[in-house]
C-alpha cells in the first residue's frame, strides 16, 4: 500500500459549551484515503459526517475547534498550516463540490467565465490557453457541445448539467481529491444515476480521490470503494463497501440497511427506535446502546473500541455474533369497496391565456397536468410517482383546492364536487381532505406552540376551544407517539422526525377521509422515515382514511401503496396495483425510472435508459415521453396520443408498443457493467 493521500488520526472536533465544557462533534476519528480511491461517509443528520469531510480540507465550521488529533493531506498537516497556505491548497489540490450546484454557480456569469475565474486563480495560463483549457474541462465532464456550453448561463442548463459544470470548476485547479457533500440529494433519480456514473468514471480516468458524503447507502454503494459509517461523531464501522454492505457487523449499520425500503419488497421496513445521543454530549457507554436490539450489560460499561475484523473495522463488543433477523412489516390494508375520491380527465394550468392571446387566437399553452383520471377507494393508498415537474404535487394542490383545474372534475365519494377552490368549499368538505407537507420545518409555524398548531383545525372544524382543544391535542400527540409535554414546545425545539409527527397529527385532527401526503418523508433520515411510514400505516388502519402518497422515491411508494400511478410531465403513463406496476411488463418510462433507482446492494447496478436532459414544456401532441423514450417507435409517438392498454384488472399502460412487446427485462445488471452512455 502506498502512502495515503489523506490521513486523519484520532481527530476530535467540537465546540466549547457553556461553562467551558468541551462538547465534541467528532470523537477520535481515524481514517485513511489513498490516491484514486473513493470513500463514502454515511450517517444520519448530526452524525458528524460533513464535519469529518470538511476537516480533510482543514476546514472547520465557525465556532468549532480541534480538540485532539490531526488531518494530513498530501504531507501537509492541515490544522498546523496558516490560513493562507490552507486556502492555497483548497481549490488547487482538494476541491469541494457543493450540494446544490444551481445555487453555487453565479447566475450572472457564463459557465465559461466561471471556469476561467478558477483557472486564473489556480494556474498561470495565458488567456488563449485558458480558453482551450475551459473547453477541455467541459469535455472532461461530458457536457455536450462544450464550446457552446461555455457561453451559456447556469439557468440554461439542466440540474444534472449544472452539477457537471460545478465539477468542471472544481477540476480547474488539477485537484488530487474531490470532496462531494451530498451532490445528488434533491435531484431526480434518473439525473442522480447519471451523475454518479459520471463521477465513477471521472475518478477512474483522472485518478482523483473522492470523499463522498451522503445519507443514502444506495448512492454510496454505487460510487464508493470503501465506506465509513458515522454515528454520534464516532466511526462505528469501516471497510470495503462490498464487505460492509453484504456482511454488516455493527448493529447500527444493520439497522440502517434494514430501514431502507427496497423496490422488490413490499411492506414497511423495520425502523430503529429512539434517537441518537445529543450532539456534544458526554459518552460513557456505547453510543448506540439505547437503540440497540442486542444490547447487553457490557455495552453500558464503557465506550467500545473500533475492532479490526480483518475485512472491516467495527465499534461493537459483539461484532461477530449473528444478527437478529430484520423483518419488514407487511401492510394489511382494509380497503372497502367504496369510492373515496375520483378524478376525471383533470387538466390543470398555472398560466391563464391572456386577453391578447385570445384576441389573436394564439394556441393555448399545454397544461401542466392533463387528462389525469384515477379513483381512490376508502382505506386505500394510491402512490403518485414521477420526476420533479411531473405534476404530482400539482394534482395534490388541485384536490386540496389550492389551484383550480381548467377542465375535468374531482369528486368525493358522496358526489360532492372538489372542483371549487378552497374559498368556495364548505367546512365539512374542507375537513374531509387534509394535506401533510413535505417539509415539516416549513409547514409548522415557528412562532406557535404545538398546542396552538394542533388547536387550529380543532377550532375550525369542531369549534373546540381552550381546555377542550388542549385535551384533544393531547390525544392527537399520543396517537403519533409524542409525549404530552411537547404541547408547550415550539417546532424549533423538536427533531425533524418529531416535527413531521406533529404535521401528521395536525392533518388527523380533522379526522379526514382523504389524506394527501406530499413527499412527507423525503426530508427525513432513513431510520426516521421507516418509523414515519409505519405511523402513517397504523393511523390509516385506525381511522380508515384513504391516502394519496406523492413521492419521487419509488421504493418508498412501493412500501406504502396499494396502487400506483406513474406520471410524466403531468400525464399518467401507467396506473395499476403496485405489484403489477412494479413488475414486468413495464411502460418505457416506468422502466426508466425504476432502472435508475439505487439500492444499497454493491453487486448490482442501475440501468440507465433515457438521457439526462433539460426539461422542456410538455409536447403539444402525441406521447408525453416521446423526447426521451428509449423505445420510440417513430412518428406515431409524436402525433398520436398513446392508447390506454388494459393489462389486467385496473392496470392501464399508455403506450403505442403492443403489450407483448413491452419490456420484461431485468431492471438491474451486474455491477461490473459499464453503463455510461456516450455524450
Amino acid at each position, binding site marked *: 500500500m502506498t502512502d495515503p493521500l489523506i490521513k486523519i488520526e484520532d481527530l476530535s472536533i467540537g465546540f466549547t459549551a457553556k461553562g467551558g465544557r468541551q462538547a465534541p462533534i467528532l470523537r477520535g476519528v481515524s481514517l485513511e484515503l489513498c490516491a484514486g480511491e473513493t470513500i463514502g461517509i454515511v450517517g444520519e443528520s448530526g452524525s458528524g459526517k460533513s464535519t469529518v469531510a470538511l476537516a480533510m480540507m482543514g476546514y472547520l465550521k465557525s465556532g468549532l475547534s480541534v480538540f485532539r488529533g490531526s488531518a494530513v493531506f498530501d504531507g501537509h498537516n492541515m490544522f498546523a498550516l496558516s490560513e493562507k497556505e490552507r486556502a492555497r491548497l483548497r481549490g488547487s489540490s482538494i476541491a469541494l463540490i457543493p450540494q446544490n450546484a444551481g445555487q453555487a454557480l453565479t447566475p450572472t456569469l457564463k459557465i465559461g467565465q466561471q471556469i476561467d475565474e478558477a483557472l486564473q486563480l489556480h494556474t498561470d495560463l495565458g488567456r488563449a490557453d485558458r480558453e482551450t483549457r475551459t473547453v477541455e474541462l467541459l469535455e472532461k465532464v461530458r457536457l455536450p457541445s462544450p464550446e457552446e456550453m461555455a457561453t451559456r448561463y447556469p439557468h440554461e442548463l439542466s440540474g444534472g448539467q449544472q452539477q457537471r459544470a460545478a465539477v468542471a470548476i472544481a477540476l480547474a485547479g488539477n485537484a488530487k481529491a474531490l470532496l462531494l457533500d451530498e451532490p445528488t440529494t434533491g435531484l431526480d433519480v434518473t439525473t442522480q444515476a447519471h451523475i454518479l456514473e459520471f463521477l465513477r468514471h471521472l475518478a477512474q480516468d483522472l485518478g482523483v480521490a473522492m470523499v463522498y458524503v451522503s445519507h443514502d447507502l444506495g448512492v454510496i454503494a454505487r460510487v464508493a470503494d470503501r465506506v465509513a459509517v458515522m454515528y454520534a461523531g464516532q466511526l462505528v464501522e469501516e471497510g470495503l463497501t462490498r464487505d460492509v454492505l453484504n456482511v454488516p457487523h455493527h448493529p447500527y449499520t444493520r439497522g440502517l440497511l434494514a430501514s431502507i425500503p427496497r423496490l422488490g419488497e413490499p411492506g414497511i421496513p423495520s425502523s430503529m427506535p429512539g434517537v441518537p445521543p445529543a450532539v456534544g454530549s458526554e459518552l460513557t457507554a456505547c453510543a448506540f446502546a439505547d437503540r440497540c436490539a442486542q444490547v447487553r450489560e457490557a455495552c453500558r460499561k464503557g465506550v467500545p473500541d473500533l475492532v479490526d475484523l480483518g475485512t472491516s473495522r467495527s465499534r461493537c463488543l459483539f461484532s461477530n455474533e449473528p444478527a437478529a433477523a430484520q423483518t419488514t412489516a407487511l401492510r394489511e390494508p382494509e380497503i372497502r369497496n367504496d369510492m373515496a375520491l375520483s378524478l376525471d380527465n383533470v387538466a390543470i394550468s398555472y398560466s391563464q391565456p391572456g386577453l391578447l392571446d385570445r384576441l389573436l387566437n394564439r394556441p393555448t399553452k399545454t397544461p401542466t397536468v392533463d387528462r389525469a383520471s384515477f379513483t381512490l377507494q376508502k382505506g386505500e393508498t394510491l402512490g403518485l410517482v414521477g420526476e420533479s415537474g411531473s405534476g404530482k404535487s400539482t394534482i395534490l394542490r388541485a384536490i386540496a383546492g389550492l389551484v383550480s383545474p381548467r377542465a375535468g372534475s374531482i369528486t368525493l365519494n358522496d358526489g360532492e364536487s372538489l372542483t371549487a377552490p378552497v374559498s368556495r368549499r364548505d367546512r365539512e368538505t374542507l375537513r374531509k381532505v387534509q394535506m401533510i407537507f413535505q417539509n415539516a420545518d416549513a409547514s409548522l*409555524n415557528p412562532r406557535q406552540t404545538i398546542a396552538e398548531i394542533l388547536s387550529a383545525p380543532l377550532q375550525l372544524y369542531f369549534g373546540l376551544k381552550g381546555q377542550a382543544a388542549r385535551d384533544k391535542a393531547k390525544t392527537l400527540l399520543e396517537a403519533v407517539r409524542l409525549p404530552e409535554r411537547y404541547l408547550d414546545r415550539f417546532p424549533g425545539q423538536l427533531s425533524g422526525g418529531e416535527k413531521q409527527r406533529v404535521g401528521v397529527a395536525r392533518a388527523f385532527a380533522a379526522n379526514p377521509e382523504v389524506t394527501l401526503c406530499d413527499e412527507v418523508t423525503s426530508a427525513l433520515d432513513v431510520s426516521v422515515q421507516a418509523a414515519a411510514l409505519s405511523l402513517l400505516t397504523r393511523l390509516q388502519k385506525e381511522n380508515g382514511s384513504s391516502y394519496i402518497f406523492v413521492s419521487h422515491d419509488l421504493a418508498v411508494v412501493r412500501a406504502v401503496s396499494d396502487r400506483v400511478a406513474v406520471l410524466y410531465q403531468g400525464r399518467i403513463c401507467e396506473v395499476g396495483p403496485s405489484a403489477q406496476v412494479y413488475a414486468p411488463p413495464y411502460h418505457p418510462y416506468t422502466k426508466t425510472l425504476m432502472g435508475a433507482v439505487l439500492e444499497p446492494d454493491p453487486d448490482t447496478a442501475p440501468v440507465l435508459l433515457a438521457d439526462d436532459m433539460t426539461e422542456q414544456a410538455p409536447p403539444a401532441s402525441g406521447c408525453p415521453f416521446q423526447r426521451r423514450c428509449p423505445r420510440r417507435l417513430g412518428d406515431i409517438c409524436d402525433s398520436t396520443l398513446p392508447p390506454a392498454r388494459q393489462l389486467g384488472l385496473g392496470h392501464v399502460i399508455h403506450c403505442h408498443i403492443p403489450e407483448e412487446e413491452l419490456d420484461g427485462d431485468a431492471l438491474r445488471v451486474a455491477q461490473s457493467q459499464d453503463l455510461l452512455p456516450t455524450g
Partner: protein
Amino acid sequence: MLNLLQTTVSKPSGAIGLGLTVLHVLIALLAPVIAPYDPTMQNADAILLAPNAEHWMGTDSLGRDVFSRVVHGGRLAISVTFAAAVIATLWGGFAGIFFGAVGGRVDEYSMRIVDAFLSMPWLLFLLLIISIGGAGPATIIPTLGFFYGVAILRVVRGAAMQVATRDYVTAARARGENIWPIISREMFPNLSDILLVEGAMRWSWMLLAFSSLSFLGFGATPPTPDWGLMVAQQRSLISTAPWAVFWPCFALSTLIIGINLLADAIGKALGLDRATAIAV
C-alpha cells in the same frame, strides 16, 4: 424579550445606540428638572455669551440659556414623531401584511397607488397640508404617520409576500381558514420583528423630517424651544456665536444616530438584515 435586549447590547454599537436613545428620552422627560433656566426666559444682559460657568452652552441672540433650550428642545420633536411612528407602523404594518397575504389584483392595483405616493415629493406635500391644516401636532402627527406608513407598507408587504408562500400559511389556506386568522395567527407573529425594526428606523427619519419642518418654520412655533427652530433662528449668527447652532445640531444628530444604531442592533439580534428587509 430580555434575551433580545441582551443580544442587542452585546455589541458596542447596540449598547451605544440603546444608551443614546434612552439618555435622550430621559433628558426630554426630566427637562424641567435638569434645565437650570426657563428655556423661554429672555435676558437682555446676557446676549450671545460664549459658554461659561453659568451658561454651559452659552446664550443666544435673545439672551436665552442654550443648555436649557437644548434640554427642552427634544420634547416636542420626540413626542410628536414617536406618536407618528406608532401610527405609521400600525397602519403601514397592517396594510402591508394584508396586501401581502391577499396578493393578486387587489395587491397589484393598491401597489400602484402606493407607488404614486412614494414618488411624491413628500416634503412639499407636507408643507401644503400644513399650510391648509395649520402647524399644530394635530396636523403633523397624522400627516407624518400617513406618509411614512406608506413606506413601511411597501417593506412589510414585500416580507409578507414571502411569508405568505411558506407551507404553514399554505396549510392554513388549505384548511380553509379565513384571511383574518391567517393574518393574525400565522403571519403577524412572523413579521413582528420586521415591524419593530422598521418602526424604529422610520422614527429616526421622522425626527429629521420634523426638525426640517421646524427649520422651515412649519413645525414648532416660537418661542417653543425646538432643535430645528433654534438652528433656523440662530443660523445667521453662526460665525459669531456658533454654540447657539452647534448644540441643537449635536443633540439632534446624537439622537438620530442612537436610534439608527439601536434599530440596526435589534435587527441583527433578530437575525434580520436591514439591507434585504428595506426595499424602498
